[in-house]
């Protein structure tokens, strides 16, 4: 049975290591924070200028000066520090963040990632995604294996404009976990009851053993 959203997030949480500084994208990646092992010391970075992002606030705690990169109200922690945008992206671009987990529309077998624009549709912008994929030490993508039309989102070559070239290290889909290696995708793990045949059938990108 393929993973659902929460199971994908739970699987992604295994990418965390104790002491990591992590930037989570919006959508499913945000759910990863629900699955952080209790004994791990993980610090979340929010690229609008915060290290040590806390939970959503209670009604009483809401502070308009305290939001995350998704513009949602959040809280601070004891460890929290604040900084300006150039400092925030110095941290990201300089490779000081250990891991970023983010969503994608397409990933290619060479690690190209597309998640910011669809030609012909309204383009809202890339926000900090291009900086994150270019700068963070390790990029893990969470996305459905196929789009709503049933077409593979793991491609030989992205059809959409790129967010980053050769930047993805690992992809977690509803079907399994795949690493980008020389020659294509290497299967790391299958979701329960998912077969290799099913993966082959639903994947355009080359799969290497």
């Amino acid at each position: 049975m393929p993973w659902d959203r929460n199971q994908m997030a739970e699987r992604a949480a295994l990418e965390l290591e104790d002491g990591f500084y992590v930037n989570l994208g919006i959508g499913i990646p945000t759910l990863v924070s629900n699955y952080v092992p209790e004994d791990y010391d993980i610090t979340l970075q929010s690229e609008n200028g915060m290290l040590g992002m806390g939970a959503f606030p209670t009604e009483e705690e809401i502070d308009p000066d305290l939001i995350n990169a998704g513009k949602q109200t959040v809280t601070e922690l004891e460890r929290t520090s604040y900084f300006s945008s150039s400092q925030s992206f110095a941290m990201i671009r300089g490779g000081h963040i250990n891991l970023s987990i983010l969503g994608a529309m397409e990933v290619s077998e060479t690690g190209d990632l597309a998640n910011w624009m669809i030609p012909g549709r309204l383009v809202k912008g890339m926000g900090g995604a291009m900086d994150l994929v270019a700068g963070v030490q390790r990029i893990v993508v969470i996305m459905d294996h196929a789009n709503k039309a049933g077409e593979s989102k793991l491609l030989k070559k992205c059809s959409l404009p790129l967010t980053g070239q050769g930047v993805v290290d690992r992809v977690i889909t509803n079907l399994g976990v795949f690493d980008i290696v020389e020659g294509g995708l290497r299967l790391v793990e299958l979701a329960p009851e998912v077969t290799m045949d099913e993966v082959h059938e639903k994947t355009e990108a080359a799969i290497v053993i």
Partner: protein
Amino acid sequence: MKKVYSAAKSALDGLLFDGMTIAAGGFGLCGIPENLIQSIKESGVKNLTIASNNAGVDGFGLGLLLQDMQVKKMISSYVGENDLFMQQYLAGDLEIEFNPQGTLAERLRAGGAGIPGFYTATGVGTKIAEGKELKEFDGKTYVLERGLKADLAIVKAWKGDEQGNLTYRKTAMNFNPECATAGTVTVAEVEELVPVGALDKMSIHTPGVYVQRIFEGKHEKRIEQRTTRAA
């Protein structure tokens, strides 16, 4: 040299002109110079190029400047929250130059720091790097991005003093320090104007040398995504 003004209108006196470039602090609606934006709207100045990470929402923040078509071009990383923006954009009345968020922040910092260009890996191999100079360093390819300066920077801080020293609060800091350095003239609005010496000297995020005019204003501080958990 008096830097203190009574309100946004007087603080902007003589600074606005059609076709000018303005750098505006804020991320979403957080930490935006509300009073200065309102006053720029009322001035009727046209053909503005605005460097700001976002473009406000309908009827608030930079969205106000769209109502009378005052903006010619935005330099932003994300503009999703504004229907009027999208209408003008699709109608071809509004140009947009997308910059990756970190590149925009660094361009403003570089502009303020006398650095006309810097190399970054951000955007290499994407549309963003098209037409720009590429260069290899230690076997990796980078793209040349330009420093960005503005005729006017408008910023919002938590507290400021009569010397123009500014202290921001939490994530309302965001792009404000970078914008403050990038303006030929920088006007700051603060929630509280305090006597010189009242700010903690180790947490003055924008030293007064960057701020030419300052005033105290009232701030609505509208929240874009009110997200809560149960108490």
